[in-house]
């Protein structure tokens, strides 16, 4: 069951990214590349030769595997298809945030390892943005776990399924904070532009500049996986209907269907945001992240003021 969930996550991550790209293209009056473009890109990159910059160290070479590995691990912890998976007690939401931080910090270290100006630019921007986004993410999780009385994701989802979370006003703030963090952490448009190169405002792509071949493929796949993980966490917290609470085949099948439908619907929202908003100036980005943090704090206060 655990393996199945990981494999499903790995398989649909490129699909979801491609679907998002396709919607964006349609909204911008371009011809979309098709749903399979994600897989085609990965295949092409995996078959290409990988280069190492001349004076990079083992950290540079090692990091893509760490990044990918931690994200795979993260996908085992999120209830994507079912709750109470075997690995679920190993970590709660706080540990999940820590796990994603491991991936981010190795990416930053790998970028700084090359010592190129662009990469270190990306590195310190990433650290800045995430230093402000991580508290926002944690406070959004805090609200949910305070309501559910637990930081275990499975318990939170079970609570949410009984409709005990969604009616609470503080959850509105949590949802707003989480959505903003999702945009920030996955380098979506008002913060970063996932489609750009050679632009002085980029963050995430700047750190990948020196990677090529299979390393780049792992990083790209990892980024898609991270987006999927964030979206599924959002689904699990705020729209948890359909996630299986038993390991029966029908329940799993239903859960998979529900997941596909929810992802299908989630993508247009993201695509709309990315089409309607312009990329912000870099110095505006911290304000954006701070807004998310503020939403989280207000949510926490609301929770305590209104009583649980």
């Amino acid at each position, binding site marked *: 069951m655990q393996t199945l969930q990981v494999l499903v996550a790995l398989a649909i991550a490129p699909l979801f990214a491609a679907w998002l790209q396709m919607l964006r293209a349609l909204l911008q009056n371009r011809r979309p590349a098709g749903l399979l473009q994600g897989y085609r890109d990965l295949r092409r990159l*995996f078959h290409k030769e*990988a*280069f*190492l910059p*001349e*004076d990079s*160290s083992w*950290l540079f*070479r090692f990091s893509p*595997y*760490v990044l*990918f*590995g*931690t994200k795979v*691990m993260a996908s*085992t912890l999120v209830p994507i298809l079912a709750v109470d998976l075997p690995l679920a*007690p*190993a*970590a*709660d939401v*706080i*540990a999940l945030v820590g*796990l994603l*931080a*491991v991936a981010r*910090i190795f990416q*930053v*270290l790998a970028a*700084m*390892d090359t*010592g*190129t*100006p*662009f990469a*270190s*630019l990306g590195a*310190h921007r990433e*650290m800045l943005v995430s230093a*402000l986004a*991580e*508290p926002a993410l944690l406070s959004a999780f*805090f609200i949910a*776990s305070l309501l559910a*009385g*637990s*930081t*275990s994701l499975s*318990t939170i989802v079970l609570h949410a399924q009984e409709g005990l979370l969604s009616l609470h006003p503080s959850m509105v703030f949590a949802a707003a904070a989480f959505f903003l963090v999702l945009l920030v952490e996955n380098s979506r448009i008002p913060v970063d532009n996932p489609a750009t*190169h*050679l632009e002085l405002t980029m963050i995430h792509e700047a750190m990948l*500049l020196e990677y090529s*071949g299979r390393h780049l493929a*792992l990083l790209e796949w990892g980024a898609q996986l991270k987006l999927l993980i964030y979206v599924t966490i959002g689904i699990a917290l705020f729209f948890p209907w359909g996630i299986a609470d038993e390991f029966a085949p029908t329940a799993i099948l239903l859960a998979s269907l529900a997941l596909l439908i929810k992802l299908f619907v989630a993508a247009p929202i993201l695509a709309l945001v990315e089409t309607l908003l312009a990329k912000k100036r870099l110095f505006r980005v911290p304000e954006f992240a701070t807004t998310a*943090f503020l939403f*989280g*704090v207000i949510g926490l*206060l609301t929770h*305590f*003021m209104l009583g*649980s």
Partner: protein
Amino acid sequence: MNALLPLQMALGAVALGPLASLGSLLPRLQPSWLRYTSLMTSTLMSLLWLLSGALGLILVAAPAPNLAVGGIPLWQFRLDPLSAFFLVVLGLVGTASSLHAVGYFRQLGRTGLRRVLIPLPLFLSAMALLLLADNAYTFLVAWEGMALSSSYLILAQTQTIQARHAAYLYLLVAHLGALCLLAAFALLCHGNPLAGNDFSALAHEVLAPGLAQAVLLLTLLGFGAKLGMAPLHVWLPEAHPAAPSPVSALMSAAMLPIALYGLLRIDWQILPPEGVSWGLVWLALGLLTAGFGVLFSTLQRDLKRLLAYSSMENMGLILVALGLARLFVAEGSPTLAALALSAGLFQTLNHALFKGLLFLGSGSVFHSTGTVDMGRLGGLIRRMPQTTLLMLIGCLAIAGLPPLNGFASEWMLLQAFLLAPQMASGTLQAILPLTAAGVVLVLALASFAIIKAFGLSFLGQPRSVYTAHEASLWERLAMAFLALGCIFLGLVPGFAIHAISAVNALLLSGNSLGIQQPWRLTPISPERASYVPGWFLIGIAMAILLTFLLVWWRFGRPLRRVPVWSCGFRGARTARMQDSPAGFSQSLLRIFQPIHHGRLQPDTASKELRVELTDPFWVGLYEPLQRLALALSRQALRLQHGKISSYLLYAFLTLVVLLVLVR
């Protein structure tokens, strides 16, 4: 087993310290001989403390026996779980620092060595004596010995004007703190600290409420000054960088926690934590210290200063945890109090491990390159690969990444915050979420600071020309010892929590935190929260290994080294094009400008921008105080005319006043 054995063992080790100091004075000793014998004695002492501390935590049943020596003044000693826990911390850091010092001081001559080796064992002994002290007299003597010996150590290697200024400031603040403590003990012992009442006798006495409040305030000031608590922190970022690195490690990772020990001993055991207000004060001051420390640490250029501010941040977090525990006690929820207290003590232990490691590593960097200026370093991962790996472990641990130890204690602290709403009181409900949000922000900024330190010093290209060499075997051994500790406690956090439960039992009259399995943490119940770092590590390792093998098997082709692409930039690439320390944190400088008033200033000599920072507490608090003191002294100067007749008049008047008053 004899219940006094751990105490006797620890006291024996304390006695070795002065002997080692005297031994360094022997004439005609070879420098290498001097170094090995003295530092091996220090290592032995620290190992003995580690052992006796561990024995004390495991074996000593309450109430711990007391040992008295001498008549008047009376020396009294006791090893209870609280002392034992801090003795373990001291033992760990002391062992590593002594081992590291063997390598670090290898180029010093006899005179230079003596400057270090005479005060160093005394410093260690004074700290251990302080932990074992069981009456006011012993405690204060050890406290003073600790302050004096460490201020000599600050000046052991550099006698620049900055270092002397740092040592002076340190001594000044330490003595102001000591005065507060003396006053506090005088109040506690009804005016006579020499009376020889041991601490448990003091705990049974009932103080007038006003007096108790005064003692709480005085001890907070006295220990806070040593702790680096804002606004008494001004000495800390000056003194730590000035000292030689093994000493910085000792000061930061062992001496600061000892101030926490004092706080727990007097404000918790002797004066039981009642009422909400002092818990709130600790919480607020802790958050202020943590926030201030982390903000300044992100902006530093000097590696050791950055670490010093980070120590301040950690002490602040521990104070937050202890304050939270106090609040829980006041609110009558012992389980949560035990959780918060364990989180604070666990963080103390973790801080000792990783901050010790990082300070020792920065010492190795200094020894190897001659600088700890991050604007000059870079690329050490290729010159000092093993040191870099050990430092990486320390950095990841302090950045709070699972499955290392820093994460485990932070996790417990956050759990304590999340379980808080069970508490009844209304006002706290508004304060606690804000504090929790502040703590989370501090943690995120702390990882920013430490990644800056590691990335700029060890990765990329060297920013200046230097010949770096790998650290000596002794230094690497010491760092590996601490790094293994970080990994071990990260994987089996329950082991540490189990050891801490003895302290909980002492301070909270019964340990109500359930028995923890060594490899998993479940503070209340598995449904509420659980964390199993071992599975975490296995999961990540398996995922990484599988990915690597699969990718290698399917797409493995030899890698090729090519010149960096750098977006197609073809010009000459220089190391100056990387981030400078000011550049890395420029955006943070800009965001938090209203708080710290930092500015970028061009430095004409090296043609680069530097961050110009002034401590707002220095400008806002210390300078007015200084001016006030000077003005008062000028007024006092009026009395002094140099005429013998008026001096006789003063003496006569004083006599009359005294006679009237005393009668």
